[in-house]
């Protein structure tokens, strides 16, 4: 009799199941609009040219070794990553009250932040501090916080998980004025801001614009966390490069917070992987490489913007029922099309166009070659199925 006889099979993660179903599908015109990664116009993954260049530099640099990084990560990476989020001349950086924790992608940064908050935020017995996430939000947000030990239930000092830009899954962000209103209430109600920044630069093509909300909150004197991912904007998905930026009231608080984070990191992954952090740090701190990177990021952002405008144009030209302005008003990798579950089911089953049940599509799955087919498929779906 097995010791694990009662372990049930876990439900598969929806987006992975979608990709698995897509792979099994033999239809020649199939399109995958569920994937969460950038694709070129040939529907291929793209290793950024600057990344290839820096990888070679690193591989040929014989002074670099594979010895353990410090627990909190590569210092140059942590500093340059926090700088890119908060800005070169951020007062918080100048006042030495910012720290970074190199993490395993954005997920790792969120998990470390969550584990810290569960232990140290809002006094003792704080697992009942509610975490507010947007409805809808990225499906893993809930799992990260509940697995870190949060349950539910009290109002002041609640933690609010905010998407810094390019909201996933809707692609809809607050305007600057709306952010100001949000900040005002949060200040008054003593609510903690935990930003998730996975798309800086990738959303609008402009690093500063995509970090506006985070920097605004800092300028208003908030203490906050910002979980940064470099998976999308550096195309370094499998290197797991992330940084948890911590902004505290003063440097003493910042260093005590980091000391506790170090203890948490030690028990999850001990110390982070070096390769991705080296690539990012080298790029961010070398002017020519930094310029080349911004260019590469803009290439990706521009392709997404082009697909948005072309999809909208084609739907309008076909006279597809409904309004399609939201396709170009939304920003970032994802678009919430507004298609309902029946329509989604039809698109997948009859037209072999794969998207999430919520109606979310990844604009990167669109190419100049499949755009017509996708637009016609959406048109057919919306006219046939209500």
């Amino acid at each position: 009799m097995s010791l694990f006889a009662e372990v049930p099979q876990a439900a598969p993660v929806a987006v992975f199941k979608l990709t698995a179903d897509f792979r099994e599908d033999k239809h020649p015109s199939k399109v995958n609009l569920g994937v969460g990664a950038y694709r070129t116009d040939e529907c291929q993954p793209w290793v950024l040219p600057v990344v290839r260049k820096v990888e070679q530099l690193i591989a040929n640099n014989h002074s670099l070794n594979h010895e353990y990084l410090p627990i909190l990560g590569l210092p140059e990476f942590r500093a340059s990553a926090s700088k890119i989020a908060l800005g070169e001349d951020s007062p918080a950086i100048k006042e030495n009250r910012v720290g970074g924790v190199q993490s395993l992608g954005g997920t790792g940064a969120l998990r470390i932040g969550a584990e810290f908050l569960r232990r140290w935020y809002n006094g003792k017995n704080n697992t009942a501090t509610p975490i507010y996430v947007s409805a809808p939000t990225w499906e893993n947000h809930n799992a990260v916080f509940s697995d870190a030990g949060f349950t539910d239930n009290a109002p002041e000092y609640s933690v609010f998980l905010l998407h810094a830009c390019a909201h996933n899954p809707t692609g809809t962000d607050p305007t600057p004025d709306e952010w100001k209103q949000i900040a005002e209430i949060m200040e008054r109600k003593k609510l903690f801001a935990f930003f998730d920044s996975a798309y800086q630069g990738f959303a609008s093509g402009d690093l500063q614009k995509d970090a506006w909300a985070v920097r605004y909150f800092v300028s208003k004197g908030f203490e906050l966390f910002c979980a940064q991912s470099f998976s999308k904007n550096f195309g370094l998905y499998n290197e797991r490069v992330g940084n948890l930026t911590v902004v505290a009231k003063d440097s003493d608080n910042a260093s005590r917070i980091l000391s506790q984070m170090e203890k948490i990191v030690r028990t999850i992954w001990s110390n982070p992987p070096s390769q991705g952090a080296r690539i990012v740090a080298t790029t961010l701190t070398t002017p020519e490489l930094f310029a080349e990177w911004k260019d590469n990021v803009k290439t990706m952002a521009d392709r997404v913007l082009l697909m948005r405008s072309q999809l909208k144009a084609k739907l309008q030209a076909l006279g597809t029922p409904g309004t399609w302005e939201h396709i170009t008003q939304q920003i970032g990798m994802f678009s919430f099309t507004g298609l309902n579950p029946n329509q989604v089911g039809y698109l997948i089953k009859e037209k072999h166009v794969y998207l999430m049940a919520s109606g979310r599509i990844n604009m990167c799955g669109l190419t100049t070659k499949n755009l017509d087919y996708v637009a016609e498929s959406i048109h057919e779906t919306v006219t046939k199925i209500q």
Partner: protein
Amino acid sequence: MCFSSLPLFTEYLNEEGHGSLLPMTRKVMLQICSDPTLTLDYLPTLGLPEFTRSATELALGRDSPAIRENRAGGVQTLGGTGAIRLGAELLQRWYNVGGARCGPVYLSSPSGGSVAATLQGAGISDIRSYRYWDPDKKGFSVEPLLEDLEVAPEQSVIVLYASAHCPTGAEPSHADWKQIAEVMMGLCWGDPAQDAWSLRYFVSLGFELLCAQSFSTNFGLYSDRVGSLLLVLKHSSLLLAVQSQAASLVHSLWSRPPGGGARLVTMVLNNPALLAEW
């Protein structure tokens, strides 16, 4: 792989006192980053399949019945620590026999750096020790360990080092291991370096077990965080269920593992010339 109790990490140092990169590492890394067919896309949640297969074969031996019967598999993790953390999370949630929760976890006395803290991080609070180091003999003594195992509650989890015990370096003999296996009826959990004899012996006796594998020391890939949590279960259907739960836990810990180091290890383990060099 082991950690000292101070915030330092132990690693292999050469005669000049520097950490040394294996000669073939640079060669293989250059090959990997010059390969235009390799992308940087996400790895699967459970890791690179060729890597976990190779790691499992390395630990159990290619002709292990557990492998042939499809009831042994690996989950790629962030080094040995990641494997211990994931294993601890799995036990904490799912090690339940007939409704009785997982018993206490026993660590050797003394025990390497962060294992206890890692178990606690996963929510395991009942951590005890079994006697290992004999100060008179200045080595390992099996009798005290056997005594401690005899009085351990059923369903206890025992953490064992397959070889190169941290921090003492003292090891049980083959005969000692046979006696240990006889006493143990529940789960055992090992941390292998090069000598996997004890691990394979337990598997041959039909034990279900977890094994945290690290490739930091034996490949000199400390900062690449290459590890695997080996699962050996009674049937292949159980393996699938437990792996699916592991994937769910990984999803909220680090989402996917990093690719570079795992690719290197896989290449070396599957290339006869590189394997010999390693």
